C-alpha cells in the first residue's frame, strides 16, 4: 500500500517536472553556453584583460578585435595571425621601420561607433600618450608591452594608417594581434571615465556585453552583425563564471550547472568521461619547464644544464598526469614553424651522472622557486616532487622553495639576480616567435626589459635574433628563427619537461567546438542542444 502511494507520488512529481520543463523550454528559446573558468575573478572586460591569457580568451577576443586575429579554426596546426580589423599589412618598401595597415571598412563597434583610422589612432594614444584624455594607466599594464616598439602612428587616409617602429621589427604583426581596439565614442561618452565606461563597454568582437554581477558572472550576447559572418556565434548567450576550484568546476559540470569546463584536474577526468562528458586535449604552446639561472654556478656550465635534461624521465610525468601532457624536449611544440631539428635530450640517467661528474658538481645543490598553484602551472606540487626525485637520482640535491603564484610572478618579473634561486618553475606561453624565442633568449630582453629571466647569453643567438628582426621575407625570417631556436636548445637553455595538452570537459549537449592549438579559443561555432 505504502509503496503504491510512493510510486504514485513519484509519477505525479515526474509529470510535474516534465510539464515544468516543457513550459520552461517554450518560454526560453535562448540557447546559453555556460563556461566555468579557472580564474578567481571575472577578468577585466574593458579591453585590457587581466588574469593571464584566460582573460584574453574569455573577456578579450570575445568582445574585442585587434588589427590581426589568431586563426583558431584548426586543431591540427598551430594558430597563426590572420587579418582582423586590418585587411592587410606590409612594410613600407622604402622604410623598414614603417608598417602600412589597411583597415577593414564597414565595421562598427557594438555601440554604433565607426571603426576607422581616427579610432585606431585614438586607441594607440589610450596606452601610449599620458597626456591624452583617454589615457588609462591600467591598460598600460596589460597592453603596454605590445606597443613598446611603436614610435608613432600616422593617418594616411580614413582606412589606412602607418605605424612607425623604433627599430626594424619584422615580427611586429604578432604584437598587433594582441592589442584590442575599444569604442572611442563609448569612452568619450563616459567622459573618459573608465569606471563609467565599464558599465557599457563596446568592442567590435563576435559577442556584445550584456551584464555583469561582480565576482560572479559576466554575460555576453551574440553580435549578429559581426563583420565576419563565419564567426557569428551559434548560440545566443555566453555566461562566464569564475570557479578557481577544480573540484567545484567538475561538480558544476556533472550537476548540469555549466556546459564547458576549463582544465579539469586529471583525477576527475575518468569520472567525467563515465558521466558522458567530452574530454578534449590538444597540444598547444604551453611549456611546463624550469627557467635556469645561467650567470652563476652551477647552471652557467652547459654540462650541468644538459645533465638536468638527460635526468628527466618525461614519460613518468605524463603517466602521473594521466595523459594530459606530452613530453617536451624544447620550448616550442612540433607544429610551430620554428621547431626545427634540434638535439633531443632523451632520458639517459647514466649520461646525466657522467656529465655532472665531468662538471665537478657532486652533489649538485640547487634551489628552485615553485608555486603552489597558478595560471598555467598545471599540478605544480606533485609535478615538482617528481622532477626533484628524478634530478636527485642522478646526483642533484634539490631544494624546492614553494610560494604562492603572485609571489612567483614577482620573482619572474624582477629577474634571477635579485634572488638566490638557481631555477624557477614558471610556465610560459610561447605562442609566437616574439614570446617563444626572441624575448626568452636575447640578451636585450634580460630583466628588467622582459623575460630572459636567467640571463641566458649566446652571441650566436643574439646575432640570429637581430637578423630575424630585420628580415621581412617570411621564409628567410622563419629559417633564421628556426636556427635561433635550435641553438637555444643545443645550449640547453631550459630544463624541458612537458607541454600541457590543455584538457577541457564539455557537456554532451555541446557540438561544433574545435580546440585550436592556442591559448585562445573560438567559442562561436559551439551549438548548444536543448
Amino acid at each position, binding site marked *: 500500500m505504502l509503496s503504491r502511494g510512493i510510486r504514485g507520488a513519484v509519477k505525479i512529481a515526474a509529470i510535474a517536472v516534465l510539464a515544468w520543463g516543457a513550459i520552461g523550454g517554450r518560454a526560453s528559446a535562448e540557447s546559453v553556453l555556460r563556461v566555468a573558468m579557472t580564474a578567481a575573478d571575472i577578468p577585466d572586460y574593458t579591453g585590457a584583460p587581466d588574469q593571464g591569457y584566460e582573460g584574453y580568451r574569455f573577456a578579450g577576443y570575445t568582445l574585442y578585435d585587434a588589427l590581426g586575429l589568431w586563426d583558431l579554426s584548426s586543431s591540427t596546426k598551430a594558430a597563426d595571425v590572420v587579418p582582423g580589423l586590418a585587411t592587410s599589412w606590409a612594410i613600407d618598401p622604402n622604410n623598414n621601420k614603417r608598417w602600412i595597415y589597411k583597415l577593414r571598412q564597414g565595421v562598427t563597434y557594438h555601440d554604433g561607433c565607426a571603426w576607422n583610422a581616427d579610432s585606431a589612432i585614438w586607441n594607440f594614444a589610450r596606452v601610449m600618450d599620458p597626456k591624452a584624455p583617454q589615457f588609462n594607466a591600467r591598460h598600460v*599594464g596589460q597592453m603596454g608591452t605590445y606597443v613598446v616598439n611603436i614610435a608613432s602612428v600616422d593617418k594616411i587616409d580614413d582606412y589606412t594608417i602607418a605605424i612607425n617602429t623604433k627599430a626594424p621589427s619584422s615580427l611586429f604583426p604578432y604584437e598587433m594581434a594582441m592589442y584590442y581596439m575599444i569604442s572611442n565614442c563609448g569612452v568619450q561618452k563616459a567622459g573618459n571615465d573608465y569606471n563609467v565606461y565599464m558599465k557599457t563597454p563596446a568592442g567590435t568582437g563576435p559577442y556584445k556585453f550584456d551584464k555583469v554581477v561582480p565576482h560572479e558572472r559576466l554575460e555576453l550576447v551574440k553580435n549578429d552583425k559581426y563583420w565576419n559572418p563565419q564567426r557569428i556565434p551559434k548560440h545566443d548567450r555566453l555566461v562566464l563564471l569564475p570557479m*578557481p576550484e577544480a573540484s567545484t568546476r567538475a*561538480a558544476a559540470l*556533472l*550537476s548540469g*550547472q555549466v556546459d564547458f569546463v576549463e582544465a579539469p584536474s586529471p583525477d576527475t577526468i575518468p569520472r567525467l568521461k563515465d558521466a558522458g562528458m567530452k574530454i578534449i586535449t590538444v597540444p598547444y604552446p604551453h611549456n611546463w619547464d624550469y627557467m635556469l639561472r645561467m650567470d652563476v654556478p652551477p647552471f652557467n656550465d652547459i654540462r650541468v644544464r644538459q645533465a638536468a635534461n638527460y635526468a628527466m624521465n618525461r614519460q613518468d610525468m605524463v603517466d602521473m598526469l594521466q595523459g594530459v601532457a606530452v613530453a617536451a624536449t624544447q620550448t616550442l611544440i612540433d607544429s610551430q614553424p620554428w621547431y626545427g631539428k634540434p638535439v633531443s635530450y632523451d632520458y639517459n640517467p647514466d649520461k646525466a651522472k657522467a656529465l655532472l661528474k665531468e662538471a665537478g658538481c657532486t652533489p649538485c645543490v640547487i634551489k628552485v622557486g615553485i608555486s603552489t598553484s597558478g595560471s598555467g602551472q598545471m599540478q605544480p606540487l606533485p609535478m615538482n616532487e617528481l622532477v626533484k626525485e628524478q634530478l636527485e637520482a642522478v646526483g642533484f640535491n634539490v631544494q624546492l622553495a614553494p610560494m604562492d603564484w*603572485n609571489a612567483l*610572478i*614577482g620573482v619572474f618579473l624582477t629577474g634571477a639576480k635579485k634572488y638566490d634561486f638557481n631555477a624557477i618553475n614558471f610556465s610560459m606561453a610561447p605562442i609566437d616567435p616574439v614570446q617563444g624565442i626572441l624575448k626568452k633568449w636575447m640578451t636585450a630582453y634580460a630583466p628588467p626589459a*622582459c623575460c630572459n629571466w636567467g640571463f641566458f647569453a649566446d652571441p650566436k643567438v643574439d646575432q640570429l635574433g637581430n637578423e630575424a628582426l630585420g628580415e621581412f621575407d617570411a621564409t628567410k625570417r622563419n629559417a633564421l628563427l628556426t636556427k635561433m631556436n635550435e641553438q637555444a636548445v643545443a645550449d640547453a637553455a631550459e630544463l624541458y619537461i612537458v607541454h600541457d595538452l590543455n584538457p577541457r570537459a564539455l557537456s554532451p549537449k555541446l557540438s561544433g567546438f574545435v580546440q585550436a592549438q592556442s591559448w585562445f579559443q573560438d567559442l562561436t561555432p559551439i551549438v548548444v542542444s536543448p
Partner: protein
Amino acid sequence: MWLYAGRRIVLTIPILLGVTIICFALVQIAPGDPIQNLLSPTATAQDAARLRAAYGLDQPLMVQYFIWLGKVCVGNLGMSISDNVPVAGEVLHAFVNTIVIALISVVLAFVVSMIFGVIAAYRTGSLADRLITAVAVFGISVPPFWLGVILVIFFAVDLSWLPATGMGASGSETFSYFRWADFKFAIMPIIALALPPLGIMTRTTRSSIAEILNQDFIQTLRAKGLSEAQVIVHAVVNIMPQAVAMLGLQLGYLIGGSVLVETVFTWPGTGYLLNKAVLTRDIPLLQGTILVLATAFVLINLVVDLAQSLIDPRLKRS
C-alpha cells in the same frame, strides 16, 4: 547599563586600531605585489614600476598606512586595486551574503543543539545520548570544506537535488531567500557552516544541562510537583547566559572563518572575497574586508555581553 555599553564601545576603538596595524603589517611581510596581477605576461619591470607609482604603492609603508587610516576614519575604505571599484561597496555586498547564511546556520545549530543537548543530558548513557554524541563529535572533527565537497558529490552530482555552486541561477544581485529556486543554492553552504557549531554547542549544552539536573534545586522543583518538562525548562533557563555566549562566539567564527566553505561553493561572501584579495594581493580590499570582519566580531561580542547582562543581572554587577 548605558554606561556599561558606552565603556565597551570605547574599548573597541584601540582593538580595531590594533587590528588595522597587524593586518597592514602582515600583508606587507607576505611576498608578492598587487600590481603583478594587472600586468601582461610579457610586461617589463618598468611597466610594473609605472603602475605601482600610479597606485601610490611606491610610497613608504608608514605613509601608505596613515593615508589609508585617514580615509577609513571618514568611511572611505579605498579603491580595490584589482577591480578599480570602491572597497566599501564590495565588502558591504559580500558581508550581507555572509551574515545571512552565517545567522541562519548559527540559529539552526543553536536550536538543534539545544534539543540534542537536552535529550542527551536527560538520557545520559542511553542509545540516543551516544548517537547525539557521535553526531556532535563528527561535527567538531570534520573539516567544513571537506564536508562541503562531500555534500556536493552526494546531493548535487549523484542525486541532482541541489545546485553545486554559486548564489542563484542569475547571481547574487537577484537572489531571494524566499524563492525556492534561489534558496536551494544556500542549503549546502548552510549545512556545511552549521555542523561545527552544532557539534560544539551540543556538547556544551549536554554537559551544562547534566550538571544542572544534578543540583539540589532540581530536586526541590520535582518535590514541588513540577512536571519533567517544566523541570527541563528551568534547567534550560539556567544555562541560557552560557548558551548565548556560545552562540555569539560561534557566529563570530562563522563570519570570519567561512573562507573555505565559501570558496568550495563559490558563495560570494566575505570569505570568498578575502580569498580573492589574498591571491591577488589586493591590499585595500584585504584590509577593508578584515577591518569589517573584525568590527563585526567585536560588535557581536558586545551585543552578546549586553544580552548576557540582561539575562543574568549578576554579570552586570560584577
